């Protein structure tokens, strides 16, 4: 919790405070809307940048797959300052939130400069997708590909800079990206209660960023089954994009050669993290997010 709020205080102008009211997720939307009516919309948006490194653009496509929701996001909440494909501007600028897709090739000078500049110019850095978080499929690179055969070492961005929030998965889902965007907005521009909710929602994603830069099926063994926590729900198997996981006699069985190291399984696992107070409010939070994007 300390992480984002301290960053917030340093780098982002303080949002107008609304009178205190009970912190109910259902109220959140109402407040979002009031806020919008009272202040000039553009001023109230958060500024977001999108740094595109060694990723397949699948994360961008997932973001775009919010369709109308993406337009609402851009309309009301997000001022997209730079993006390789979705904006006219590519050079990195000062923003509230920088989203990074892809890992960093350390033999590519430009990529290394860009990731450092991204960190220096952003209050919050979000690693979007398996490659930025964990290296994902780019971990398997040994170079030799045309037309840059010497580009062989790809690192998750957290190996070079400090990252605040992770969104694992390959590709991350449109819904997850949407939820994080709305929560990031509430964190930076919301009322006290909205900030509390957003902080609670984002905390597990911050913990993941703090935990490290490697992921694979193995976490289900080391962090769940080995810890006596697996209850055989099958969330992990449903999350795996490459069907590397099957459920055998109530426990996940990993075809480890298939695993691309995206981190979806362990992050999806309810025994990976389960923030009871947030998830118990699922109805109100879902409604709030949907209403925010109406």
């Amino acid at each position, binding site marked *: 919790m300390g992480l984002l709020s301290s960053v917030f205080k340093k780098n982002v102008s303080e949002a107008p405070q609304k009178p205190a009211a009970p912190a109910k997720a259902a109220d959140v939307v109402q407040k979002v809307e009031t806020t919008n009516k009272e202040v000039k919309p553009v001023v109230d948006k958060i500024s977001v940048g999108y740094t595109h490194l060694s990723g397949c653009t699948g994360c961008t496509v*997932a973001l775009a797959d919010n369709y109308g929701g993406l337009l609402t996001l851009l309309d009301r909440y997000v001022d997209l300052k730079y993006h390789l494909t979705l904006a006219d501007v590519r050079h990195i600028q000062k923003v509230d939130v920088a989203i990074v897709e892809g890992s960093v090739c350390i033999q590519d000078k430009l990529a290394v400069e860009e990731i450092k500049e991204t960190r220096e110019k952003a209050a919050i850095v979000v690693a979007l997708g398996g490659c930025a978080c964990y290296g994902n499929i780019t971990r398997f690179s040994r170079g030799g590909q045309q037309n840059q055969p010497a580009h062989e070492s790809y690192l998750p961005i957290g190996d070079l800079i400090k990252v605040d929030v992770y*969104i*694992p*998965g390959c*590709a*991350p*889902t*449109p*819904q*997850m990206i949407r*939820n994080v965007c709305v929560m990031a907005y509430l964190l930076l521009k919301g009322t006290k209660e909205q900030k509390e909710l957003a902080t609670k*929602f984002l*905390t*597990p994603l911050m*913990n993941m960023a703090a935990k490290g830069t490697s992921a694979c099926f193995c976490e289900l063994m080391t*962090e769940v089954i080995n*810890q*006596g*926590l*697996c*209850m*055989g*729900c*099958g*969330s992990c*198997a*449903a*999350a*795996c*994009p490459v069907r590397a996981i099957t*459920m055998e*006699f*109530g*426990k996940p069985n990993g075809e480890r050669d298939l695993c691309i190291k*995206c*981190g*979806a*399984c362990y*992050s*999806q696992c*309810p*025994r*990976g*993290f*389960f*923030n*009871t107070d*947030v*998830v*118990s409010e*699922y*109805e109100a*939070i*879902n409604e709030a997010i949907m209403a925010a994007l109406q």
Partner: protein
Amino acid sequence: MGAELGKYKQVVAARSADKEILKGAQDGGIVTSLFAYALDEGIIDGAIVAGSYEDDPNVESTASQNHHWRPKPVVVTTKAELLAARGTKYNISPNVSLIKEATRSYGLDKVGIVGTPCQMQAIRKGQLYPFGWRDVESSIALAVGIFCMENFPYQSILQLVEDHAAMKLESVKKMEIGKGKFWVYGKRGQVVQLPLKVTHKYEQPGCHVCMDYVANLADISTGSVGSPDGWSTVFVRSKIGDSVWAKAMAAGVFETQPIEKVKPGLELVSKLANEKITKNRNTLEARKTFGVGKGLRNPFI
């Protein structure tokens, strides 16, 4: 009675009004009737339930590992398929593993799912944090939770039935936990009861940190505890649950009685829920200092 029962809009004792369903039902036939009704009305276009490996021709049956009573999550889209998958199997059916597949290979837009309280937690986490569950969140149309004290791995059931109760799994007609015993009913009429104490060491370890007895996060949750034989206790919890339950009641799918009027009633549900939560909270506490200066991980943050 408070937090241990979760949030709910109403709680009743209920049973199916469908004689055919009731005949083969473990208790009040709530899950089968709800899904059958929801399928009929187009509230869901398929449901993930615990089917069986027994009917699966792809699974080889061998003498040592015969797969009788081994649950297999299946997607059903008709009442006949639903009826074929009935019966509590008392070992883990990873129903959530099909949650994305149901919307893909099966092409369902409105998915029903039945599961344990922990599976309801998985579903709700997946709706708020869909890391790998693309387009799943809004397709979950009805999540029905089953009361759950603990669960067993398949091999534990094998051990209990074949070793302790000295019956072949294939000759078992029905299993049941109730009145402090684990009951095994044979197809030829024999009944073996094991004290619950015997079963404890075979429980799934992951159940020992579980803090939910009555599926707090389901749309509707149900179980036999609290209601008389042949009836089930039903909690209606969410807006979705409320609307589906109201429609089903209006259509005469269920017979109900006020929970206050039945024996043993909500007190027993509450008592068991508290017992489970207290026991498992202690386990979580003990895990913190499991080693010397080192503990085990706590997933609940």
